[in-house]
């Protein structure tokens, strides 16, 4: 029994258990047990993976397994992980785990909420462990659709509009993606759907690559908030309930970056090299543009959503640099952004749950009222603006060092432009901190509010611990990722 199957099996059992559960206690018990198991499993996986790598197992993918599913169409249920996916699985587990606690008191229809939540989880895990184009795509879409209901039913504000927009845009993206996948499959001679086998064949004609690389990249890029396909992100995040925002920004958006790397660039290397410039420009715009947009927003979640646009833009930016360091940085940035954005959204959700507003003009002096959340927010902010000691710094520095190591004017210039985002980030983070946390509370209603409850504290502390851990001791993660990134890169580089 391949332990990766457990990542499918556990959410499935959770779905079943949720389906038959009768009261809130059982639901919570199911969720806590399930997410803890998943977390434990992914920690075990990480440790075991590192141990194997240290023992000199150098295969591109470990825990590989493959079952024929639709043999005539060469569709297999193939699974396997490398360092990158292990890191992503770990991230997902952490977010899922903390997200469970962040939605501890969700109402109404708790059971349904967790059903869809778990379905989403299932999709995410499936995506990261599969190595078959079809299976991967299937899990990808599985992860997207629950978003509609999660936002539409449990969201706030203009939730119906946002949910619809988000779903349609992402599905539009996956339409592109499906084209890309078909193009890859048939371009490579329609003999296999396995990513690694296709990469090994490397026989996709260049003109076909030119057509399908942009399609695939944009397909994933939509989820990775690539400019100008990012507009679902602000509305979607703003309307989503806390844990959904966490999961979405924390994990789902990473599917985009991961897919761009694993599929678009890995399988269509020639076009990736030749067309990278186009997407580098777009991602550079994303990076700066997102950050600049964030400055003048007044809704906390909008600020963070634009910030995500910027940070995820940086992920794609780094991937397109196609150097080992930059790509490692991209993966680190995914982890880092996942954790800290989840943290951000968790705290924003908690604040919103109390003040019932996210308008920064209406809040002031929260530090006095809810010190724990305020401090958490400040820490999240610091992580976001790349303070050393938190994950953001590690990721961004790796990206910039990597991006800068390409010796031509174009790459240099875009790198420097992208660098400016770290200043802009500081501006909007500090603006918010100054406006809502500092100062004297003005709204007398706010004075009655309380600080975080135990489940909220737990969520926040877990996430901060992870952000800090990645920030203080990045080398093990960097090593975990680095080697396998190099594998992929070696296939991309001409």
């Amino acid at each position, binding site marked *: 029994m391949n332990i990766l199957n457990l990542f499918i099996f556990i959410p499935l059992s959770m779905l079943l258990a949720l389906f038959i559960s009768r009261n809130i206690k059982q639901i919570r018990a199911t969720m806590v047990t399930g997410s803890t198991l998943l977390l434990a499993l992914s920690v075990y996986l990480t440790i075991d993976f590192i141990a194997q790598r240290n023992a000199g197992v150098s295969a591109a993918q470990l825990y590989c397994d493959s079952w024929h599913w639709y043999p005539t169409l060469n*569709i297999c249920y193939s699974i396997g992980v490398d360092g990158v996916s292990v890191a992503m699985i770990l991230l997902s587990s952490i977010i899922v785990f903390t997200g469970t606690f962040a939605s501890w008191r969700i109402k109404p229809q708790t059971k349904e909420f967790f059903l869809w939540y778990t379905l989403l989880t299932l999709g995410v895990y499936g995506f990261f462990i599969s190595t078959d184009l079809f299976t991967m795509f*299937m*899990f990808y879409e599985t992860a997207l*659709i629950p978003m509609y209901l999660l936002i539409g039913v449990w969201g706030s504000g203009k939730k119906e509009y946002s949910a619809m927009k988000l779903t349609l845009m992402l599905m539009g993206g996956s*339409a592109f993606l*499906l*084209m890309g996948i078909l193009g890859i499959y048939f371009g490579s001679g329609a003999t296999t759907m396995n990513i690694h086998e296709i990469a090994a064949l490397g026989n996709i004609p260049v003109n076909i690559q030119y057509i399908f690389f942009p399609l695939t990249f944009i397909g994933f890029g939509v989820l990775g908030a690539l400019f100008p396909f990012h507009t679902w992100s602000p509305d979607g995040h703003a309307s989503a309930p806390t844990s959904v925002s966490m999961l979405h920004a924390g994990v789902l958006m990473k599917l985009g970056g991961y897919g761009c790397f694993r599929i678009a660039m890995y399988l269509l290397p020639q076009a990736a090299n030749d067309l990278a410039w186009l997407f580098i420009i777009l991602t550079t715009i994303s990076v700066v543009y997102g950050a600049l947009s964030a400055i003048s927003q007044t809704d906390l979640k909008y600020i963070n959503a634009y910030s995500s646009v910027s940070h995820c833009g940086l992920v794609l930016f780094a991937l397109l640099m196609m150097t080992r360091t930059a790509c490692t940085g991209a993966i680190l940035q995914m982890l880092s952004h996942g954790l800290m954005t989840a943290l951000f959204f968790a705290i924003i959700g908690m604040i919103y749950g109390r003040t019932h507003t996210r308008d920064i003009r209406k809040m002031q002096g929260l530090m006095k009222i809810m010190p724990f959340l305020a401090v958490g927010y400040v820490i999240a902010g610091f992580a976001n603006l790349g303070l050393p000691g938190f994950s953001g710094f590690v990721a961004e520095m790796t990206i910039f060092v990597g991006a800068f190591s390409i010796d031509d004017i174009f790459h240099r210039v875009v790198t420097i432009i992208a660098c400016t985002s770290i200043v802009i980030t500081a501006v909007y983070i500090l603006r918010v901190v100054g406006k809502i946390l500092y100062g004297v509370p003005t709204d007398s209603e706010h004075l009655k509010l309380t600080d975080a409850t135990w489940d909220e504290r737990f969520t926040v502390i877990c996430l901060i611990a992870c952000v800090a851990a990645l920030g203080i001791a990045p080398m093990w993660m960097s090593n975990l990722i680095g080697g396998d990134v190099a594998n992929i890169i070696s296939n991309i580089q001409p």
Partner: protein
Amino acid sequence: MNYLQFLSMTPEISLLGVFVMIFLFDLVATGRYRRIFHGIVCLLLIAHTYICITSGEEQTLFGGMYYNNPMISFVKALLTFGTLLVILQAHRWLRGSYTYYKQGEFYVLMLSTLIGMYFMMSARHFLLLFIGIELASLPLACLVAFDKYRHNSAEAGIKYILSSMFSSAIMLFGISYLYGITGTLYFDDMPTILTGTPIHIFSLVMFFVGLGFKISLVPFHLWTADSYQGAPTVVTAYLSVISKGAAVFTLFVVLTKVFSNMVPQWQTLLYILTVASITIANLFAIKQHNIKRFMAFSSISQAGYIMLAVIAGNAKGMTAMVFYILVYIVANLAVFGVIESIEQQTRHGVRRETINGFYSTNPRLALLMTLALFSLAGIPPFAGFFSKFFVFMSAFDAGFWVLVFIALINTVISLYYYLLIVKAMFITPNEHPVQKIKCDLYTRLSLVICFAGIVLLGICSIVYINIDKLAF
């Protein structure tokens, strides 16, 4: 003069047997026996489905007029299975005061159309094909007008039969020229002569519209919404899946057998019609508030997707097509089952506003409906995703990249309107949602089967693999 050949046509003979048994039962049974009528019909159909599946050896009968092989048998069984589901759902409706006495006729008419479809698919001669098509549509018109005392039903019936006659006339016109050109009406003898001159194209298109009408491709689709809306819901369900499925399969056979030398022509034809069907049906569906009309447009759009499999015109395409039909049957019938239940509860037509807040009172039905709509929209892990993917794959394999792309973009639009329904059920608040529905056993059984189909058909590849083995 080997009349024993009749006995070799196992599916048809078996269905005819069922037909006769029902006919006789309807004549003789009275009182409490009628209560088990429905059950008996279902059991007979199950038995027949079994016979159908097991009867599949390849055979050509009546001098090449009739052809049957495992695949065709399978499709026949599939359609029978779909009919069974429809009949299961019809139980409560048939118990209604207006329909109670016409129960027998309902079965008879439905089964006669099914026989018609059998012959449609097995026909290797245009006369048999034509009679099959007529047999599949005329009783159906009666079924559409079955609710004699409802204006809508009558109106739908007349619209259906007039459009149907119009299209048959045009199709016959086309066939007559085919006959004139080739001098024969046997499929096997025709392809070498049909090479794509203007008159060939003329007859192709003229013939095509007859089936296009039954599949309701744009621009032959305009009757669809009206008839679907007016017909009794079970009949709408039947129209939208079974009749359509048979027609698609027939179309595939005719195009590949008869027009095998005119591939570029009919591919272009299908190309245009697919794009038109998917796009225009989507546009219609967006603003549609009546659910049955909405499902009509949805079914037009789905027909467009099936055409993607037909356009490939090879064994892979056939597999994809049959699989698509299968999935489409379970998903669409699930939706119609729910609509039927709601209708029986509220005694009114179902509009999108009716089902606002449906989830709060009927969570299971709402969930089933959601899954079915997701499946129709092609969302994994439900079966619809797989069937759509395979259809795209086959069209892509045949080189229709742009077509696939257009279809894919359209899936986004279709997702939009499916989600509108989901939104109505889950999100939109309603002070007076539909009350809790107590489904009867038959409906429940059919919905469970549909649910299982939606969830399992894609994940369990065994069905697809077996279809693939049968494809020719």
